[in-house]
């Protein structure tokens, strides 16, 4: 079977004055259609960099990245834009809805850039909103919705373009734990319906909702396998990672309350 996502020896190197920072340091991995993968790691481990490259927002310094069989590692900006439009659906921590557009218009945006006719745009946006259960809020502005509802709108927007991969970057980070759980359950449901989901998070308790975990540290993969394997949630240098309360929450009792 052809891989949906294939990283071959990917490096992303930032030059900080004298010093080189290897944000990704020789990463190779594959993700197949229908998978639900969580990419986890501490702050600074290279998650955002990986997500930017997977999401075709950035290109690697070296190595090749095939998305749906196409080499996208050396593309120009506008070609990348087209790939993002056709193959990727983004879900961001901050929802990233455009405040001046109503819910319907927000969901239609990817279709607008795909050159879909107004009629079809409307229809597909409505269907997408029905999937997240917000069809009745079509005419509302994002600011009139709760955080959880806004995140569901952004999921509807990601689904509208019928992408090959749904890329969720800390999708629960701005939500309370109950709505966060709802969103995760929803992602699981999408995956069960056949969508490929890649979830980026620093939080082990969230990562374990995926089927597979890829753990990054200092730009390298240190674990890649089943999320239910006890090895999957072992965080090295746990005492250093005061920012990373996810793991603590998992073993101790609820730090965030």
């Amino acid at each position, binding site marked *: 079977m052809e891989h949906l996502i294939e990283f071959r020896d990917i490096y992303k190197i930032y030059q900080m004055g004298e010093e080189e920072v290897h944000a990704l340091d020789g990463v190779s991995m594959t993700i197949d259609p229908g998978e639900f993968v969580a990419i986890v790691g501490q702050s600074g481990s290279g998650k955002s960099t990986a997500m930017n490259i997977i999401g075709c927002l950035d290109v690697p310094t070296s190595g090749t990245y095939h998305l749906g069989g196409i080499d996208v590692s050396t593309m120009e*900006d506008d070609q990348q834009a087209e790939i993002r439009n056709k193959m990727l659906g983004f879900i961001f921590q901050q929802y990233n809805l455009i405040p001046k557009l109503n819910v319907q*218009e927000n969901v239609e945006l*990817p279709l607008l850039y795909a050159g879909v006719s107004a009629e079809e745009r409307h229809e597909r946006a409505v269907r997408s909103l029905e999937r997240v259960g917000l069809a009745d809020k079509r005419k509302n502005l994002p600011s009139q919705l709760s955080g959880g509802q806004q995140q569901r709108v952004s999921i509807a927007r990601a689904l509208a373009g019928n992408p090959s991969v749904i890329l969720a970057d800390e999708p629960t980070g701005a939500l309370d734990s109950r709505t966060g759980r709802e969103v995760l359950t929803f992602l699981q449901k999408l995956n069960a319906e056949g969508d490929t989901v890649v979830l980026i998070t620093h939080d082990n308790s969230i990562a374990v909702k995926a089927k597979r975990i890829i753990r990054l540290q200092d730009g390298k993969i240190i674990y890649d396998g089943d999320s239910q394997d006890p090895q999957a949630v072992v965080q090295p240098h746990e005492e250093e990672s005061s920012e990373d309360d996810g793991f603590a929450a998992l073993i101790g009792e609820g730090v965030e309350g």
Partner: protein
Amino acid sequence: MNFGQSFRLAVKSLMTSKMRSLLTMLGIIIGVAAVIIITSLGNGMQNYMNDQFEEMGSNLIQAQVWTTGTSLDIQAEDMYALVEKYPQYLSGVTPYKTVQGTVRQGNDEFKRTSVYGVGETFYNIDKNTIMTGSSMGQGRFLSYVDVERAQPVCVIGAYIEKEAFGGDALGKTLTVSGAPFTVVGVLAQNGDNSEGSSDDCIYIPYTQADRLSQGSYYALYMFTSIDRSTAAAAKGIVENRLLKAYHDSDYYLVMTSAEMMDAMDSMVNLLMAILTLIAAISLLVGGIGIMNIMLVSVTERTREIGIRKSLGAKGRDIRSQFIIEAGTTSAIGGSIGIILGIIMANVITNVIALVLGTGNDGFVAMPTLQGIGVAFGVSVAIGILFGYLPANKAAKLNPIDALRYD
């Protein structure tokens, strides 16, 4: 991308911050309003002058000849002969003498009344009009005998009839420089029947005029060409004849009213062009205002740009969105400017009518369709031109940095 959505977004963001939008568009509004006002004034001025000339006749040719007091001097007979010789170009000629003198009737004095000495040919029997356009109302025009014998008779304009004689003038007498003249004819109203207008005039035989104002250094002849188009050829004929008599073109000056009209027109046009250029500078300033606010808007909406790019907007999609927005802003500014300009032109028309007391058929500052079209086109063009730089900046933003911005 989608023009309709960009347009709606632009209008939406203009509406959400009205004060800022107004300030952004102010330069464009003022510039466009100024262009409309200036072109309206120019158009009105041209129309007004053309009307004045039209009233006087557009086929008139004036020949001014310096008198030398020698046998060289051209005589009225020579001019009559010229008209007879070239009937296909010239339709008439008369000596035409402006008389400086006070007009009195009873105890009334008429200071602004024009008195002219003319021949019987000043009146065209076939058309029933005099050379300057008025037609006969009552009585008759000056006759050959009146001129030959220098009879003390006159034909008066409608204004004099009304003001000096209360509407019943035939057979009555008025004085010019103390000399009495009997009214034999009254002209029909031609102008607006006000003081100093073309209805405020008196025609006497030119032989009488010679007596009233002696020692004149020049003689004036008024020709009429068949129509406006033959005026140039007719002028050439008159000039040739005068050159033959004097052998020196310094002794005479021949002007056609068509030429004068054209000269005036081009002068007004030049003046308008200069003023419009000055107004255009304010349009330029308006454009810079738009550029400035668009740059601010691009910065404020960095995150929106990042979102759009992450969803698949290409550089050109973002660029056209901001250009459409700038174009819409300046087009709305331009429309407001056009409306303001038209209102101002109307106000100016009314103020001028009030000050000059000319009423409705005087000067009218009339906006031209062309002026409106150009002003609107230029304002949209300026928006697009000055919107390009900010739009390009937006199009080039890196989506990762843009998404992280807040």
